[in-house]
């Protein structure tokens, strides 16, 4: 659907275009509809908006100047990495400029001694690990989109991945972030050292969804590659049993290197692409990884197998070599787009719930699937209770998107009810901005607005995303009924 942002700006297109063309060479400023359309959305194609202008700067000086121009002329600006985001975070603003960081793709430094890398924001997540590989190091947070998504986008979304259960999210693996605020001033968050003096603003920029600053350089922590990693595939004849097995593994005191789940529709979609040899008769498969020294791994794999067997796994397969391990994971990593083989469109949900409620949630999703008449494939970062139900729909059929959205909202509201959150790692973006009211009180939302204003008084950076206007909150609670969802106490 074309998305009409409720925060509008009276912008003089010619004026801002002139300013931007003075900063950048012609081919780095796109301003014709023909060239702008392909920028109208990110990985969430259901929400689209045509920007006024797209700019592709190459230097920090250019970024500073672009921001200054937008700030002066009160033009909204949306930063963009690889646009793999799944919450519409990089969706343009129709009165504004899209600033792509795709040309910032230099790895500036790899320091094997301090185990850090300094990279530009447009560097792909996987490229960091590839560059660090000769030193026996890698960058631990590995979103499934790691082949394409950028470090800047990862910081902005505080992205997670398979390895985050054990090694932390982006925020735990970033030491320093450099960038520019909307008025064109350079800012730095964090320091090379593990802890810096003063307020920890680094945690604020991680997950800031392009609302606080444009990131232009990131210093990340690198992690030594384990001597050995092996993954157990545990098949189940029932998804809920698989859900319970996740809780059992963690309850047994095991912290796997990764603990993921796919249900039958998901394995059926990926198998033709990865040819990993998944058992296609099973209702669900858990991928449970152990890493460490060969002795540790051997011992842990045995413990994992024992727990999984006890939880009702019908069969267990352990990867026998690195190629096989990677193949088993490749299926999980390609799962979302592979679902494109069985449906023209999908909405990928991102709720997080306490692990012990997984089975309950799976049952509810199955019921909702019947209620809305839409298929749903389930792919989870099971270990941290982060759900990715993929609701399948056909955008060419009138009404299906609306049904899919309503289906998704019910899942997320239930996540909150079960003591979880509406987003685990994909961010709020434009997609879940209304649902923020399901999770936060008006007082909390006002606090978010104040933080935003401290960085961006005019509200120009990525407006309309992440934090709902208070008017939107009111509307949400009036139509959906705040009582329907009582946020559990947090902290």
């Amino acid at each position, binding site marked *: 659907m074309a998305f009409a942002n409720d925060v509008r700006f009276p912008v003089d297109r010619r004026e801002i275009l002139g300013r931007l063309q003075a900063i950048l060479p012609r081919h780095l400023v796109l301003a014709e509809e023909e060239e702008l359309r392909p920028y109208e959305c990110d990985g969430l194609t259901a929400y689209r908006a045509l920007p006024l202008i797209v700019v592709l700067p190459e230097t920090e000086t250019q970024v500073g100047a672009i921001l200054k121009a937008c700030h002066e002329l009160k033009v909204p600006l949306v930063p963009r990495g690889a*646009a793999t985001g799944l919450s519409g975070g990089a969706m343009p603003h129709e009165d504004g400029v899209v600033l792509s960081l795709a040309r910032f*793709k230099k790895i500036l430094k790899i320091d094997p001694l301090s185990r850090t890398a300094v990279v530009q924001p447009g560097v792909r997540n996987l490229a960091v690990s590839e560059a660090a590989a000769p030193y026996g190091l890698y960058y631990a947070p590995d979103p499934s989109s790691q082949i394409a998504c950028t470090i800047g986008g990862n910081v902005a979304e505080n992205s997670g991945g398979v390895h985050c259960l054990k090694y932390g999210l982006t925020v735990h693996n970033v030491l320093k972030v450099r960038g520019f605020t909307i008025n064109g001033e350079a800012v730095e968050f964090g320091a090379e050292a593990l802890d810096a003096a003063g307020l920890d603003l680094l945690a604020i920029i991680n997950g800031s969804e392009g609302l606080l600053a444009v990131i232009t350089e990131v210093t990340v922590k690198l992690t030594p590659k384990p001597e050995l990693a092996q993954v157990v595939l545990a098949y189940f004849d029932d998804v809920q049993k698989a859900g319970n097995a996740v809780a059992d593994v963690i309850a047994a005191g095991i912290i796997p290197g990764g603990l993921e789940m796919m249900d039958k529709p998901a394995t059926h979609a990926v198998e033709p692409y990865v040819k990993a040899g998944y058992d296609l008769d099973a209702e669900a498969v858990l991928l449970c990884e152990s890493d460490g020294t060969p002795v540790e791994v051997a011992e842990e794999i045995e413990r994992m197998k024992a727990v999984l067997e006890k939880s009702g796994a019908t069969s267990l397969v352990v990867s026998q070599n690195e190629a096989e391990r990677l193949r088993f994971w490749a299926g999980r990593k390609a*799962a979302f787009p592979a679902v494109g083989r069985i449906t023209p*469109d999908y909405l990928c949900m991102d709720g997080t719930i306490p692990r012990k409620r997984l089975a309950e949630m799976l049952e509810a999703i199955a019921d909702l699937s019947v209620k809305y008449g839409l298929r749903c494939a389930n792919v989870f970062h099971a270990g941290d209770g982060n759900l990715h139900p993929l609701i399948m729909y056909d955008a060419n059929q009138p009404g299906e998107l609306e049904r899919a959205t309503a289906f998704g909202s019910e899942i997320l509201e239930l996540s909150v009810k079960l003591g979880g959150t509406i987003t685990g790692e994909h961010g709020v973006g434009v997609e879940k901005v209304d649902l923020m009211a399901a999770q936060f009180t008006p007082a909390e939302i006002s606090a978010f607005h104040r933080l935003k204003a401290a960085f961006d008084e005019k509200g120009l950076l990525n407006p309309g995303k992440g934090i709902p206007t208070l008017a939107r909150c009111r509307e949400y609670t009036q139509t959906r009924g705040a009582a329907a969802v009582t946020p559990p106490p947090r902290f």
Partner: protein
Amino acid sequence: MQTNLADFIKDTPDGREADAILRTCVHCGFCTATCPTYQLLGDELDGPRGRIYLIKQMLEGKPVTEKTQLHLDRCLTCRSCETTCPSGVKYHRLLDIGRKVLNERVPRPLAQRLVRTALKEALPRPWIFRPAVAAGQLVRPLLPQVLSDKVPTSAPGQSRGWPEKSNHPRRMLVLAGCVQPGLAPNTNAATARLLDRIGITLFEAPEAGCCGALRFHLDAQEQALDDMRRNIDAWWPHVEQGVEAIVMTASGCGAHVKEYGLLLKDDPAYAAKAERIAALTLDISEVLAAEAEKLKPLLVTRQHPPLKLAFHSPCTLQHGQKIKGVVEELLQAAGVELTPVPDPHLCCGSAGTYSILQPALSKQLRDNKLAALNSGAPAAIVTANIGCQTHLQAGSAKPVRHWVEIIEERL
């Protein structure tokens, strides 16, 4: 993705195929990561996902200009994006349809038309092209850089000729191709000698010519279909007499001939034959892999000095025909040490006539590719497609050869 194709195309075979392809794309962006032009230019419009969007707009009836043309022209048709795409998007088919429609809507300026006409008339005709290479060698110093790079510096790789007489019951056809006989005559000769040793007679059908790929990618899809029909006519009597396979020694031709069935599916006179021809078509690596049991003992009969080579797998081999690791295994069986090559999925920039039509990007890709190939200090470079071979050779002091020549020399 949501689609809403315009009336002019909606109910045509092309329209239906394009719609189906567009609808498989879920806009995840994975493909941008392995697209050579997106990696160089960082503009959505120069990556597969953006090009898909540009084509979608055009097919939905939005106005198109030379801007769309520029970004589609920059596409190498390397199909790396297809290898990466988990959703199975058949990008190159969408691009073919997109380019055809675009060509009707956005006429090219005269200068561009002339270059394209010259290429599509000369290259597919050995009788123009071969003398042209000879003439080119004489006037090499006078040619503009892009063209002079394409003309081999010395007489092309000395050919030891075809086997004197080869008369085995097992017979296979081989495509002579259009540019290969002029630039690298030893490739097919070596293939013939090699197959002769394992009991297969290889022969060419003189009436066959260019596989059609050149014209197909030069705004001349109809003419290309004629090339294809002519080849089918040339091969058909031999097919009826039971040739075992139609062998391709240039992976660019192989990728195209393997699509004859698809490309001619709407021609009732040729559809069935085209299907059969496509099914009989094999890359030489596939033939040798199938004969490995006969070949391998021959490869270990003589002692050879150690040889370190870098293999460049052409896009038409790894992405187009999805043949991976096969050539490498054969070379290793022949005692060759293969040096590691970073980013092996990336195109070398040759891409048919791309090196002539997009010289700047092409050169950048070639420089990167040569750096990657040379990073392991090989004695020479081997590849599997004449286009890549001459393109890389033009920038390399080390010899660039067809891998099959190496195998044959080691028998």
